[in-house]
């Protein structure tokens, strides 16, 4: 119970800190936000118009007042208004969240499968498989999303024409983005999984399992794999973060709606409220994600539940 409360407290603290950091960081941004609201310096915004906007967005208030005001608004779930799109950020960001979560989750799942498959295969198939497996993992882990994505588009959309390069109503549109995100991550997870898988396979309890007449497959799937999974599970929170980073690239390349693309557009068009909104929502997602992974690791490894 106490732990739960502490957990919640921590989460709130992190959110507050994130909000504060972004608020003040954003205040350092050169350029007049009011002008940004009126479509940047390119517009012919008149002095009155600027004044009006400053009033509307409370930009004429002293900084501290603005800060408190923002905290209050954030607390009430109001993320402010987008300068560039002139709509409320909250709904916008939420509408974009879905797309990103979808590909991120699918990618995480796929990465898991790939990593597991590669790890198990490369630890049983002898020397060649070993080198091949670890080689594949290292290369995969080193793949830049953008490069890999373009390569996939060229091969699968242009040459083979099997998968569409942009988001479509159907599942087909998901394939390339998800693969792009999953493969590098699979590289990372695979490396970790293999290490722990080997550790498990050499451990005495596997020997006694064998001594009981357990088959190779049994040894792997009943005993070893679970141990191999543990560290990878606890990494999933971090992995999810990196997936969201990757989403920025992937969503831009595959013209998918989503947080990443929204963020990038917001950054290039100096759309501060949207940037803040995205950062906040990502922080929330991240916190939830770490909570989930903690729970998952506890489920997978009862020892954690006992100590900790």
């Amino acid at each position, binding site marked *: 119970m106490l732990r739960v409360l502490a957990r919640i407290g921590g989460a709130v603290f992190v959110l507050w800190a994130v909000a504060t950091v972004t608020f003040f960081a954003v205040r350092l941004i050169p350029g007049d936000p009011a002008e940004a609201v009126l479509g940047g310096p390119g517009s012919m915004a008149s002095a009155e118009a600027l004044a009006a906007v400053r009033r509307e967005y409370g930009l004429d208030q002293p900084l501290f007042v603005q800060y408190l005001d923002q905290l209050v608004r954030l607390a009430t779930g109001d993320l402010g208004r987008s300068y560039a799109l002139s709509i409320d950020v909250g709904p916008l960001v939420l509408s974009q969240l879905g797309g990103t979560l979808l590909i991120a989750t699918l990618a995480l799942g796929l990465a898991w499968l790939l990593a597991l498959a590669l790890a198990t295969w490369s630890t049983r198939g002898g020397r060649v498989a070993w080198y091949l497996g670890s080689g594949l993992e290292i290369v995969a*882990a080193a793949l830049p999303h953008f490069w890999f994505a373009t390569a996939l588009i060229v091969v699968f959309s242009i040459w083979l024409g099997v998968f569409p390069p942009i988001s479509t109503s159907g599942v087909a549109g998901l394939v390339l983005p998800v693969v792009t995100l999953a493969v590098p991550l699979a590289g990372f997870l695979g490396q970790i999984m293999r290490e722990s898988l080997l550790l498990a396979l050499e451990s005495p309890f596997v020997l006694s399992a064998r001594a009981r007449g357990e088959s190779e497959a049994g040894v792997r799937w009943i005993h070893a794999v679970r141990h191999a999974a543990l560290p990878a599970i606890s990494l999933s929170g971090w992995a999810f973060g990196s997936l969201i980073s990757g989403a920025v690239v992937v969503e831009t390349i595959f013209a998918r709606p989503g947080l990443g693309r929204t963020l*990038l557009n917001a950054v290039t068009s100096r759309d501060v409220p949207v940037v803040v909104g995205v950062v906040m929502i990502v922080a929330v997602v991240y916190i939830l994600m770490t909570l989930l992974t903690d729970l998952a690791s506890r489920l997978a490894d009862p020892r954690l539940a006992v100590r900790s």
Partner: protein
Amino acid sequence: MSGDIRLPAADAAPTPLHDRARRFTAPEVVAGAAALFFVLAAVVPQWVAPGNPLGINPLSAFQPPSFAHGFGTDESGRDIYTRVVHGTGSSLLIGAAATAIGLGLGIVLGTLAGMFGPVVDFTVNRVLEVLFAFPGLLLALLFILVFGPGVITATIAVGLSTAPGYARIIRAQLIAVRRSAYVEAATVQGLGRTQILLRHILPNTLAPLFVLATLGVGQAIVWAATLSYLGLGAEPPTAEWGAMLSAGRTYITSAWWMSFFPGLFIVLIAVTATVLGRSLDRRLRHA
């Protein structure tokens, strides 16, 4: 439970394992060669690729790879091999600088957390949690939003976004070392706090950082390239790999080589870094 009892240890010295750690494996040799190449390309590019990375020749633009141009030419007829080689320096520099920044911050935070008692530890950990709530690229983008795009900001941004990870590792390592039996032994020998810190704790904490650094450089380069690719990093016509890639992506359907080779180099350097980092790690552990 029965922690204070161990199995009988072989009374024969375990030298073979030790030898195995010393021997070079095939991948290590290859990686070493690659590293050598990269270093040469970074330090004396004109040896590896004579020719001007910026020298345009519009009429021989978009040449596919050939004997004349191993990696083909780009939209302005510049030789891609030359550009890629000459880009190594800046890319490596960016990667190294970013890693240095990240590690530096990591060391500061990690040491604070690991050395100066529970209160500091708690605070630093909270700070780290907050930093972790900004996934790498987000932190970088926010930083760029504030300080404007460009190579330097991109480098710092990447450094920043890697710092929390390093900090955690360093903290863990530091705590492990502080609690280690040999530090206690040193105390029993009557060494003072500072002596122990200098003689045992710092060396044993920092040694593994070389590994982290090598591994980090590869990833840093990839992230920096990503920023350039998003148009927030190096500026054309600088022969920086990420920038070259983002220039090449426009012509991907007609001139694949423009983006293939810079990308290939990024992957290669990252792989090299990983392989070397790992073998370094193995050596540090087994000898």
